[in-house]
């Protein structure tokens, strides 16, 4: 433990800024993945263990598209779209067959695909880890904000993530589609009763989840090393996020993701050896206090 | 036998039960009626410990049982059956009843012997005969007809040899003659068991046929209480309740189901 460092940091605005942006970037990428996860659970009641793989695919797609086009904007959009398509196909062809079945059965299908996707990546892109490299536009020195260091790229990432998150929220809260989605989350039979094609809706939700994960992957690609199985750690973390936030709650995912991000960045100062432990501890505490997560609906 | 005083409960500021005071004489057969959202089910939930009352007392034979856990209340002799039959889908009728008996006798955590304990099994069969489910003993409860499921559900409550039995719409979702068979059964059981029986019912014909006395709830308040004849003549009741049609009642009962516990 190293509480002194933490204390001195909390007393310096520079440190707080730097650490917070650090936490923010971790949190935002987590949020993008977790949002899809929680959305899918909320609507389809499916615990999508393949979501980490979507993130991985997003990153690898980004790598390829960037190598081909050299345009990062195209890369992000392309990676998102491609992943969305994969997700859609995955849902239509496989997950849709296990709706309403034992949760464990769905979990099994997902697990199967985690393994398959990892090996496919291995076959297509190779076992060795890759790095996409920073787009030239962002190869600039970090900015100083209130004495804290803030890399422009991270500003960009956080910005994009926020925009995506906001759009998502607006779509869910304001649009007709969003209403349907919420209705479906509340009571599927009702949606069916309203004469809405649930198959179409579910496919859409899955694709949306894939899109978000794909974006996350593309945004992470320039700074994280790409390896088969890279989806895994983020999967676990985003599960922690969704559970803390309350399965099915986008807002919850957002709050929890930020919390986890900050816990990581400040925790690494105070408890350098226990940053992961902190995360699980936090989750345990939340669940003990609120058995269905921060924003989770009470299942009576 | 059972008496509630000043019972109040509200959900998020919405009062579901306001200062309700009622009592049910030992061995009486009472019907609770009331329109949509009258708080009938809430009333049962409060008595059976599914919900804690905000204010007010629940007394069973003079003992205050307000705020006790469902298990504790069951042990004190209040059993209930549910609006929607909540049977254990993957178990057979026999197993369910036997397991319930063993719970009643305090054997449910026995690990020294094998299931079924003969004494429990025998009792289970008695109940089955009483209910007329003997020939269905080996069936999965989930494969029973709706009526039989409700019957079994009531049977489970009976196994506990309750002093007070709460039935939430024993005839909900049944066809006409099924209803009458059911209600006849209920009446028969009541006579045999010498217990205090309180039931929620929508079918006025049934209510007026078998209930000794009736309590009318409306928007969480006691609107009226008295003998069937008194209630029949009560203008408020007629205004508030008897106007509504059977369909809406069914919908209403369903909407309450979805609320669940």
């Amino acid at each position, binding site marked *: 433990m190293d509480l002194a*460092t933490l204390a001195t940091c909390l007393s310096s605005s520079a440190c707080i800024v730097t650490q917070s942006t650090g936490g923010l970037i971790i949190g935002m990428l987590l949020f993008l993945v977790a949002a899809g996860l929680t959305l899918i659970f909320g609507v389809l009641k499916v615990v999508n263990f393949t979501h980490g793989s979507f993130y991985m695919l997003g990153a690898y797609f980004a790598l390829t598209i960037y190598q081909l086009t050299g345009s990062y904007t195209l890369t992000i959009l392309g990676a998102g779209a491609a992943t969305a398509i994969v997700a859609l196909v995955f849902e239509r062809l496989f997950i849709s067959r296990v709706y309403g079945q034992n949760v464990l059965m769905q979990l099994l299908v997902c697990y199967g695909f985690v393994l398959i996707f990892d090996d496919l990546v291995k076959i297509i892109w190779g076992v060795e*880890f890759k790095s996409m490299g920073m787009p030239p536009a962002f190869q600039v020195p970090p900015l100083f904000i209130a004495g804290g*260091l803030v890399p422009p790229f991270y500003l960009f990432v956080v910005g994009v993530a926020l925009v995506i998150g906001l759009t998502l929220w607006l779509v869910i809260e304001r649009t007709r589609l969003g209403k349907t989605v919420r209705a479906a989350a509340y009571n599927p039979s009702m949606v069916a009763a309203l004469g809405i094609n649930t198959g179409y809706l579910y496919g859409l939700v899955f694709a949306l989840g894939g899109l978000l994960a794909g974006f996350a992957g593309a945004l*992470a690609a320039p700074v994280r*090393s790409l390896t088969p199985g890279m989806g895994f750690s983020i999967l676990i973390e985003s599960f922690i996020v969704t559970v803390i936030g309350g399965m099915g709650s986008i807002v919850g995912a957002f709050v929890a993701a930020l919390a986890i991000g900050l816990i990581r960045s400040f925790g*690494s100062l105070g408890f350098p050896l226990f940053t992961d432990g902190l995360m699980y501890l936090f989750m345990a505490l939340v669940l003990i206090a609120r058995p269905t997560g921060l924003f989770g609906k009470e299942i009576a | 036998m059972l008496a509630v005083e000043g019972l109040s409960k509200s959900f998020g500021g919405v009062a579901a039960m306001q200062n309700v005071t009622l009592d049910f004489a030992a061995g009486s057969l009472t019907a609770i009626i009331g329109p949509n959202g009258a708080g009938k089910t809430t009333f049962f939930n409060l008595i059976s410990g599914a919900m804690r009352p905000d204010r007010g007392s629940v007394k069973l034979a003079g003992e205050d049982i307000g705020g006790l856990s469902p298990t504790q209340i069951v042990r004190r002799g209040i059993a209930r059956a549910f609006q929607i039959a909540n049977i254990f889908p993957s178990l057979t009728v026999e197993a369910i009843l036997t397991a319930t008996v063993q719970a009643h006798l305090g054997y449910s955590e026995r690990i020294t012997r094998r299931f079924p304990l003969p004494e429990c099994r025998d009792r289970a069969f008695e109940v089955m005969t009483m209910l007329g489910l003997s020939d269905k003993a080996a069936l999965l409860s989930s494969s029973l007809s709706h009526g039989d499921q409700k019957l079994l559900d009531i049977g489970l409550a009976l196994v506990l040899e309750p002093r007070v039995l709460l039935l939430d719409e024993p005839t909900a979702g049944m066809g006409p003659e099924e209803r009458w068979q059911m209600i006849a059964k209920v009446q028969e059981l009541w006579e045999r068991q010498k217990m205090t029986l309180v039931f929620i019912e929508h079918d006025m014909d049934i209510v007026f046929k078998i209930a000794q006395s009736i309590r009318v709830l409306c928007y969480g308040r006691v609107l009226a209480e008295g003998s069937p004849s008194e209630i029949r003549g009560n203008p408020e009741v007629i205004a508030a309740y008897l106007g509504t049609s059977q369909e809406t009642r069914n919908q209403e009962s369903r909407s309450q189901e979805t609320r669940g516990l």
Partner: protein
Amino acid sequence: MTHARRNRIDRRTLLKSAAASTVGLLAAPMVARSENKSIKIGMSTILSGRVAQLGTSSRNAVMMEIEKVNAAGGLAGRQIEMVIRDSKGQPQEAARLSRELVNSDGCEILIDAEASSGAFAVHEVARDLGMLTLHTNSETSSLSADPKLHLPNAFRVCRQGVHDCIVGGAYAAKVAKTKNLTKWMTTSPDYAYGRDTTGEYMSYVKYFNPDVEVVGEAWPKLFQPDYTEVLTKILQTKPQALYSCLWGGDVTAFIDQGNIYALFGQVETFAVNMADYTALTAVKNLPKGIHSGNRYIKTFPNTPENAAWADAYRAKYNEYPTNWAWENASAIHFLAAAAKKANSADGAKLAEVMKGLTIASPFGADGNITLRAEDQTMVGYAIGWGTTISTEPYVTDMTAGDWKQILELEAEWKKKKNYA
């Protein structure tokens, strides 16, 4: 109907695999070990998951060398047959596989090409079965240094943490003196290798240059995808110099993420595992002037033999060898030499002659490498530090470590640890 068909299909597949397994289990050969018969060498390594690349390169190197040995007549006249299995990096699997390699595949020699925890698992198997076992990847010093773990039948044919630390420490201390770097910080993966190496490295830096003080530590998890919290912590601590033994994809991610904080302009960085082709070729815009130890590079030792070996490997597998590759190649070199000397392929006899065996090697500091008798671990291999440049040969100004000094300090270190 369709359902029924599904069942049938599936039952069939199941029966197949079941049958296959029962054959594999029951018909386990009680191998007759006649001299003229070919000899099986079992190798468990990591062919899937994060480290797959290193495992694959280990396999490549071994196969490449085996070809030569077999072409030259094999081990004392017996052709070598490699049986290579994937442990997926799980120690219990490594243990299981090693047992299976011996018990059901009839392997007579084991090569343990596992990372540290796997190596210790295989070491226990070696203790149990008494097979000749060559550890080719685990650099954790205690594996060979700790007498409690010593086995007559187990050898370590790879670099060793403490050696790296002594050389790196001496090198870093020199740089620190000239550039007057006193405030140091460390960033290493939070597992045994990371902790031990970092601790020892810094202790030697201090030993050679007492002015140096460690002002902060960060311990990212192994395979952690994001180092932001680590980087910001470094920026808070504002050290003059940074040591890290992050490796593989982790070090490249760290470099990529450090770049956007312009970290390497501000801090003199010593990354022992940077100078390995896996990292050097993967990382985009590799910053100039990062100090690194040699893991494997074609130009160090700068001999025709070494270059030739690297080119041969590259020609065969069209990628550069890794650190694990040269270590596993050396294992085969030692086996071949030992077999010649003992004129036998029998594990016990080989183990006997391997103690203290010195062979010519492209990877030797002075053209030779030796399996030191006392603790049966490799010494004399090329070890040195240099600085990175963004293009081939990626690393320049290599300063070779002084083995005389290494051995002296290693002996002291062992005393300090009560190993000797």
